[in-house]
């Protein structure tokens, strides 16, 4: 195991403090329906934050995830409206997502473009296509199959949370128990070493971006299921929350220093903060500021602890 276990990071304390604060001051925060709501909201974020962790570990980033998720949701909805089966529509969403992820990977790895520029470009492309396909409107009439699956529970646990747990298990296994995971650490930590070991590093590097696209496409299932409609701009800005969650969770932007369990903590912290501020009826503009502040506070705690 590379580094699945570590000392408790600053983020855990911060999450605990937030939960206590909102439980005391937000009347409805600690209720079961609200906690389940937090879980549901965090599920989609986790689906994006997991591959984002891998991408950031390779000293990259993916700004297009939110837009690609939006486009995949539109594709999913349109296929359903056209009367195609749910598996086929879902496959379409996954395909679109993977295609964009591959494009990101090829631009960054093969063409050598800076990740910021390449994925910012793809953000625009995905966003634009989604708007063209929908004229900017919501797509309703997707039938009942998808919302029905989304509404299922197992032992009282909603489908979205189950999906998120399953996704985490897969990514944990991928990062800490497979070759791909080892190479994620190596691409960020010492790419030259990987190349000198005779590993086709470029191929793995592209694959990591493709996984990011795949997960953005897959998240469309939960997003569309929750909203019962497809909407081109529904996921705008989610890549920002995902990056915040990853960084707050203790993954560093260099040397392949990543920590997947931390990403879960980061996602929950973002989820708790957003929900808690909602419950306390804080205006949404201030909520955005608070997310920004979260990054700074979390990194500050870690750097202060690191110094002592």
């Amino acid at each position: 195991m590379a580094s699945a276990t570590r000392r408790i990071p600053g983020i855990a304390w911060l999450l605990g403090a937030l939960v206590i604060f909102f439980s005391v001051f937000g009347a409805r925060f600690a209720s079961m329906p609200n906690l389940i709501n937090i879980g549901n909201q965090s599920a989609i974020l986790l689906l994006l934050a997991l591959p984002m962790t891998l991408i950031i570990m390779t000293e990259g980033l993916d700004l297009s995830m939110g837009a690609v998720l939006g486009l995949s949701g539109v594709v999913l909805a349109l296929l359903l409206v056209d009367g195609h089966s749910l598996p086929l529509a879902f496959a379409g969403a996954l395909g679109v997502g993977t295609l964009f992820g591959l494009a990101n990977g090829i631009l960054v790895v093969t063409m050598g473009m800076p990740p910021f520029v390449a994925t910012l470009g793809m953000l625009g492309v995905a966003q634009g296509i989604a708007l063209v396909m929908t004229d900017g409107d919501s797509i309703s009439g997707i039938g009942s199959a998808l919302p029905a699956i989304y509404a299922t529970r197992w032992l009282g646990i909603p489908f979205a949370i189950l999906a998120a747990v399953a996704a985490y298990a897969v990514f944990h296994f991928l990062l800490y128990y497979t070759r791909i995971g080892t190479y994620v650490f190596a691409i960020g930590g010492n790419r030259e070493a990987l190349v000198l070991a005779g590993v086709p590093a470029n191929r793995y590097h592209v694959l990591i971006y493709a996984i990011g696209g795949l997960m953005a496409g897959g998240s469309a299932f939960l997003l569309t299921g929750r909203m019962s409609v497809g909407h081109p701009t529904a996921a705008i800005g989610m890549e920002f929350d995902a990056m915040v969650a990853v960084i707050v969770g203790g993954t560093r932007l260099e040397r392949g220093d990543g920590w997947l369990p931390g990403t879960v903590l980061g996602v929950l912290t973002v989820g708790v903060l957003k929900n808690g501020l909602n419950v306390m009826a804080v205006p949404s503009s201030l909520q955005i500021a608070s997310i920004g502040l979260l990054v700074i506070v979390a990194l500050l705690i870690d750097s202060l602890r690191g110094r002592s």
Partner: protein
Amino acid sequence: MKVDLAPLIEMRGISKAFPGVRALEDVSLAVSAGEVHMLVGQNGAGKSTLIKVLCGAHHPDHGEFLIDGNAVRIHSVADARRLGIAVIFQEFSLVPFLNVAQNIFLGRELRDRRRMHSEAARILEMLGIQIDTHTLIDKLGVAQQQMIEIAKALSQNARILVMDEPTAALSEHEIARLFERIRKLQQDGIAIIYISHRMREVFEIGNRITVLRDGRVAASLIPSETSVNELVRLMVGREVDTTYGRHFCERPGEIVLETRALGSANGIREASIHVRKGEIVGLAGLVGAGRTELVRAIFGADRTTHGEVLLDGKPLKDDPANSVNCGVGLVPENRKTEGLALIRSVHDNLLVAGLPRVFPNRSYRFGKAVRIVAGLIERLRIATPTPLRLTRFLSGGNQQKVVIGKWLNAGSRFFIFDEPTRGIDVGSKAEIFSLLDNIVSQGAAVLMISSELPEIVAVCDRAYVMRDRTIAGELQRSDLTEENILRLAMHHG
């Protein structure tokens, strides 16, 4: 019978050119099973290139490889590996946030993790290292990382092992351990190519010595039939053909810059040097000896921890901006990234550092600026069609002149040149040196780092030689020869 005599690995007539440089020319090298073949040479003699070619990272332009007397193709790192060639590189090829076992088996991961760890532990035990194989590389010190690097190479069951200065980061005790292990490897019939700057090692474990010089094999010798002096002579091996018309300083003036037992955060220890008015003082040493670090400490770019830096007898603060104001000009090795704003014009680059001096009341007057720039361009003979030409379009030599002009205009009296002739053609080189001569004859003082020993010998009035991040010795003009520099720069004891 003949088969037994064939060397395990043979390189024949290897040539390799990079744009503008002949890195290797007709190099042949043969290593038998159980032989430790020492490879020595100056900086840039071609040692590293030869290894990169052998391990498949570079493709030679000409030449062939034979293993057990049979021609083989090495077109990739994977090819080399399959043929049993393993390299321990000088820069670590370790991944910080993977553990010891994962690093040792990087690219050759075993399905069974437990076996991967037990295999790794077995290799470490052979080397006499006690490190838990689950430890992250990030948690290990430099010496331990070096041992892991060695373990990684050994784990490949290599028949041909290349070591590029493996002892640079090791303590005496660890070196002894490593040599013990190397002798065992010899008994196992492994062929070892060992690059070293430490003369003691060359004679202690080498069976044969090949000296590279300027990309060619200068000699191949048996240790018992040669000496340190002969090796040094072979590594240098050429007569100095030019002094670039330098007017050597007969009576230097007062001390401009002095360091007293300087120690710095970047590892410099007990470095004492001084440079007088009118002098060009060389700073020589092998790669990694600490030359650039010393210069950064003087300039204030890295923190001073011991001793002091004096300019005109007054202490100099650890602040590059202050150093510039006091008259220190640094011409860095990477002029493209550190010395110049490439996307700005010659005009802008020449003026930027001197603005406070030229326009003390902060009002910029274009006419005066144009006159100053025109004067500098003429004085330095910068070849540019117009002062507004972007510096990125200039040749290396002219870019270097712009950097020098920038500091002249800033009123610098003490110049530090870090590898001033790197990437510059021969003609421009002579011009740069006559410029240096010109600067010092007008009362400035120059400290010049160079890896080109002939340049130091040809141009400098005096030279300091660095080793292990401190000053190993000082050479006066009369003793300033390549042999003497190399002798000081390398380890003897």
